């Protein structure tokens, strides 16, 4: 029951955050210079005072701000985030269409970053003066200081230009027919460079973190006890130390999600990966603000869901954490 209460509590909290994002969106639209009615009239090709008045009435722009806010919230909660004049489609439909590509990229990159990063960090902690430890230092500096988009371009130059191993852009080979398996292989082939680019940036975080956590855990009393019992070193590390060293890693996975989406915008733009980030870039070029704002709402929603899942996973790993202890 405690578990259920915890999940409900987090759900409620997430819903509150979502509401706050929608209110922020509404405020941004209100504060932005320029009259929305003018913009709409411009899209329709010319404005007369009558037309402007008609548009204001049709979109409810003549009503008071609180009423407009409630209308906006009501629409948004029913999944209506506005209309894109450039793509000639509802914003939500556009986003649903692009979301799978982004989720695929982000999840692959995250898996790469967490598994390789943690493995590197743990190994580096076990051999603190070795080559690996230096490699982790270098990697974390590169991942921290190199702009994601530039790293992607450099990988393109190396592995699509100098050594043409991978495709230059996109998610599918144009005109390629074939079964499900062939398509999956094709997508995977296109996915390698973008996922590695995004992965390297975040691998840096995890390897550094895992090394620090592991070094701390290896000095703890229970590890000394396990060693004193005569357990083999690999068992001490795998069973006693690793589990505890993973706790900070899991915490940070949750915190990193929002940054992962930000990174995806840049990486998708470099590789023409047809996801939300690329859509954001396109909507900037077209000054298609409803789409941009819609992407902000949706990616925040994804972050909230991801945080929720992390919180639940966190409790699974560390039984010391009690309901509401760290809200």
């Amino acid at each position, binding site marked *: 029951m405690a578990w259920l209460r915890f999940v409900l509590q987090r759900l409620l909290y997430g819903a509150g955050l979502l509401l706050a994002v929608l209110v922020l969106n509404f405020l*941004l639209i209100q504060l932005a210079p320029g009259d929305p009615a003018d913009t709409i009239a411009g899209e329709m090709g010319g404005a007369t005072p009558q037309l402007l008045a008609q548009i204001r009435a049709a979109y409810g722009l003549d009503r008071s701000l609180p009423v407009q806010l409630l209308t906006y919230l009501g629409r948004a909660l029913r999944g209506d985030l506005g209309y894109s004049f450039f793509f000639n489609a509802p914003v939500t439909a556009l986003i649903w269409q692009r979301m799978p590509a982004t989720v695929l990229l982000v999840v692959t990159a995250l898996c790469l970053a967490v598994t390789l990063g943690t493995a590197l960090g743990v190994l580096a902690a076990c051999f603190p003066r070795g080559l690996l430890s230096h490699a982790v230092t270098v990697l974390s500096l590169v991942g921290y200081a190199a*702009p994601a*988009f*530039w790293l992607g371009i450099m990988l393109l130059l190396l592995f699509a230009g100098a050594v043409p191993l991978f495709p230059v852009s996109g998610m599918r080979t144009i005109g390629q027919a074939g079964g499900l398996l062939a398509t999956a292989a094709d997508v995977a082939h296109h996915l390698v460079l973008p996922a590695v680019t995004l992965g390297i940036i975040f691998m840096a975080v995890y390897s550094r973190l895992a090394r620090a956590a592991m070094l701390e855990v290896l000095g703890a009393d229970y590890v000394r006890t396990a060693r004193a019992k005569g357990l083999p070193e690999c068992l001490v590390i795998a069973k006693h130390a690793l589990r505890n060293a993973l706790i900070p890693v899991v915490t940070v996975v949750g915190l990193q999600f929002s940054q992962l989406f930000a990174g995806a*915008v*840049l990486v998708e*733009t470099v590789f023409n990966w047809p996801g939300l980030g690329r859509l954001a870039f396109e909507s900037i070029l077209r000054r298609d603000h409803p789409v941009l704002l819609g992407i902000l709402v949706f990616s*925040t929603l994804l972050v909230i869901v991801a945080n929720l899942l992390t919180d639940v996973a966190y409790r699974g790993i560390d039984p010391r954490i009690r309901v509401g202890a760290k809200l």
Partner: protein
Amino acid sequence: MPATLSTPSVTPRQPPPGFWRRFARNRAAVAGLAIVAGMLLVALGGPLVYRADPFAVVWAPLAPPGEAGFWLGTDYLGRDLLAGLVYGARTTLVVGTAAALCTVVIGVLLGASAGYYGGWVDALLMRVTEFFQVLPALLLAMVLVALFAPTLTTIALAIGVVSWPLVARLVRAEFLRLREREFVLAARALGASDRRLIWGVILPNALPPLIVTAALLVGVAILFEAGLSFLGLGDPNVMSWGLMIGSNRDYIFDAWWAVTFPGLAIFLTVLSLSLVGDGLNDALNPRLRER
């Protein structure tokens, strides 16, 4: 302002003893500082020495480095890349510093209020902080710059608005740690006002971690600015490194130099700032060194 003559002053006006010796022992930090100083020199004096218009078309497009006296070659329009790099240094450092300043100001104001007053002020401000941490920072900055005009001021403010939560949390934690210490209680007992306690007594003692964070924030802000101008959200009237990469990226297979050099410049600058930050951290908190 009441006389606060007798308020115990624990304000560290000078770096702790041995600061420079400890900083100098960290060779990476010294190298970082040298590179940052070099970048500053280029940003301030470069345009005076290397008089060239970074937007002027001066030669054939995509000329390789060294051709016709253009050390780094030309870009897709035939503009001098070295000029772009020199003038871009100015933009990068100005926006980076201004944005870091915005971040610190917002973060200190909110973090200090939350940590000092506690209670409902703290609860409210921490909810706001959590909310901003959920928003994908770059996306929010993109929205802000796209809705309001892309000028250097908007960009610096937008970066400040999206990255303050880190500073606010740090300052709040420091205030919570220091709030009940003897010297603060003594100052309070002597009748120091809230304002004096926050700015004159507690904040100066929270400075060391704040200085380290500020050095790192400049680097983060530079990455932000580069990302925004790469996406076409930079100030169109000013040359910047991100803009150079963004505008030349369709030609990477014909001209690796046009994207490689500006990227290297960003990488080196951010890396150096991070090394300086680490060095400051070690030198300001000698006890933390072994962690």
